[in-house]
């Protein structure tokens, strides 16, 4: 296993994702002799995990089963231990594309936080790129370093423990892209500019409040960034459900046989795959939005240095 390379079988020391079902999963560090408790029973690493293929079904002691998945940045994002508020895959995906990241890119990031975005950035710039990430909170910086080591990606990332607004990224003229997720990004725009390559690059700043965006945009303009663009992306997830709606009884006479009447008037009813007429109801498949969804994460402001 590595976060930057697929492996077929589970090995000692791997980080694997235990999938319990219904979006319920958790990460597990595979170790000889260790056991993991789940609601379906115990998983013994030595016998149940090590040597098995990723994607296998593992039967637990109580007869229930779970799937063991290969880690990816996306699965990690859903399961990582939160030390801060994190960025989710929806924002991460647009950030990655708008910053034009690809294998070989050099990226600067601050703050590291819980490392949700960091893992995705490392995945994208590997094997020849590098991530310079700055975190002013010492404990978080240490923890992130430890995680990168465990996940086999430490050679692709440098964690620096300093204040990006005061001391910058610790590198200059080497980055293709800069990402800022800090409370006062406008104070770091100057440092961002000097971290970017002389021939130019892209920058992105993530802020939850419009006032922060405002100040950031002004700072970007001041430092000569162009193509300044602010956007917001929202994810809508749908549950796939079979819905049945009752046909109202409008008091049609019995001989009239209201159900056949409805049938003939609605041609789509003949399509038995999704619509079914049973005891005065109509069935169909629908994508139902979740009752509650994430309404706002943050504004993303992008710009170009040229």
């Amino acid at each position, binding site marked *: 296993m590595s976060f930057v390379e697929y492996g077929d079988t589970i090995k000692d020391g791997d980080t694997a994702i235990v999938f319990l079902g219904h979006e319920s999963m958790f990460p597990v560090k595979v170790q000889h002799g260790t056991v993991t408790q789940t609601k379906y029973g115990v998983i013994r690493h030595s016998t149940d995990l090590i040597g098995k293929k990723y*994607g296998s079904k593992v039967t637990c002691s109580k007869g229930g089963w779970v799937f063991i998945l290969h880690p990816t940045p996306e699965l990690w994002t859903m399961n990582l231990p939160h030390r801060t508020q994190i960025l989710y895959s929806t924002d991460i995906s*647009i950030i990655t*594309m708008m910053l*034009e990241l690809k294998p070989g890119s050099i990226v600067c990031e601050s703050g590291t936080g819980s490392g949700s975005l960091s893992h995705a950035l490392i995945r994208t710039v590997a094997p020849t790129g590098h991530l310079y990430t700055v975190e002013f909170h010492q404990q978080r910086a240490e923890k992130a370093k430890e995680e990168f080591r465990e996940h086999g990606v430490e050679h692709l990332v440098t964690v620096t423990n300093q204040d990006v607004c005061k001391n910058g990224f610790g590198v200059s003229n080497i980055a293709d892209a800069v990402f800022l997720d800090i409370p006062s990004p406008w104070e770091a725009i100057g440092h961002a500019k000097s971290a970017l390559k002389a021939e130019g690059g892209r920058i992105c700043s993530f802020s939850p409040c419009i006032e922060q965006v405002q100040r950031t945009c002004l700072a970007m303009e001041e430092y000569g960034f162009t193509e300044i663009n602010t956007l917001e992306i929202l994810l809508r997830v749908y549950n*796939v459900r079979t819905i049945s709606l009752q046909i109202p009884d409008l008091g049609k006479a019995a001989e009239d046989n209201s159900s056949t009447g409805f049938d003939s008037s609605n041609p789509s009813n003949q399509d038995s795959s999704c619509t079914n007429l049973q005891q005065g109801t109509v069935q169909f498949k629908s*994508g139902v939005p979740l009752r509650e969804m994430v309404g706002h994460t943050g504004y993303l402001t992008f710009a170009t240095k*040229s």
Partner: protein
Amino acid sequence: RKIIFEKQWFYLDNAIGHIYGTTFEVTSGGNLQPKQEVEDTTTETKEAGTDNRNIVDDGKSQKLTHDDIKALKDKGIKGQEIVQQLIENSTTFRDKTEFAQDKYIKKKKKKYEAVITIVKPSTRILSTMYYAREPGKINHLRYDTLAQMLTLGNIRAGNKMIVMETCAGLVLGAVMERMGGYGSIIQMYPGGGPVRAATSCFGFPKLFFDNLHEFPLSKVDSLLSGTFSTETLPSEPEDNALVEEESNGLTGKKQASLQETEEDTNTETAMEINETEEQETTDIDAENVEFKENKEKENRENVREKKQWERRKKLIEAAALLREKNADGLIVASKFHPTPLLLTLLEFVAPSRPFVVYCLYKEPLLECYTKLRERGGVINLKLSETWLRNYQVLPDRSHPKLTMSGGGGYLLSGITVVLDKGKTDASNLEALKMEEPSSKRCKVQDLHC
């Protein structure tokens, strides 16, 4: 070479040697001149009103007539000066609020000051551009949706990806960019050959194409059933083989010239060039068909045989890669119904790998979701859509942009897992024969995974 863009025509010769992101002004002769950062003419706009209570729309506020403006243009006067003239001759300009003045100038500048910026092609630029200019060609796949696909699909260097797309090669190009020439891609194509018009706009180095394979969709079934043989192949896609080779040659040449001059194509124009290329090649194709029985035949016989042989070799390679059934992911974005594509192509994907299907409509994905559940071997199925909202951010004038895109399509994503042996065959048969048990099983699975 003359290029037309936004009602302007120009030659690119002067742009060579400048760095990406340089802005040019179009002069009357169609030449490009680098434009420096100009000081905004803010001196004039100091005077401003506070509201519009006294501004009446009588259609007479602009003292210059259409003919006057045309005369100015014909004289070849700089756009900047025309805008200045318009402002000076607008009676209401001084009464407008500062914000309205800004807006007025912006609007006029857009019209009279023709500036273009030449930028380096990237997925960001190309997908934004295709969505704005040619949405029909990419099945209305919005750029944020494409971004989701790349992330959900865990696209990265070293993967072995299967891509089935009818998006002019844009999705393929995006995947290639993210893989940076590491790993391999097998593009499944319908008809006679893969379309890669958008792919060639990226200007990828030749190395990226070394591990790009293609395999005809129509042979997938025989590959799975084991009856696939290459002998049956050349007969049908014969002419297309030529087209493909030729267009590849063309793009190769273009890339070479690009590298030589260290210059780059304006992405917009690159696309137009490409379109003409496409047309040219299809013309050639048509001609080829006509001439096939005639004199040309002999000269070309040798070349064609060689090309066919190469093509067959590539095809055998692609078939071998697929047969291993250990692909690291599947990306589908096509005009076809996604269900049969997915049910079949997932066979080639290793367990614990992500797959993503794009569809412009939600309903086919609902069906696909149900069928995948019946089939098994997949978990974490998710049907989703993203909304994208752009903002205007200006001092005291920040708000969401007036218009936003109504829809960018839907995605169905999931992760493959090891399929239960025995149960698979049985459930497949049952699913075909009896609706009842399979739907029950589906429910059971729903509960459990």
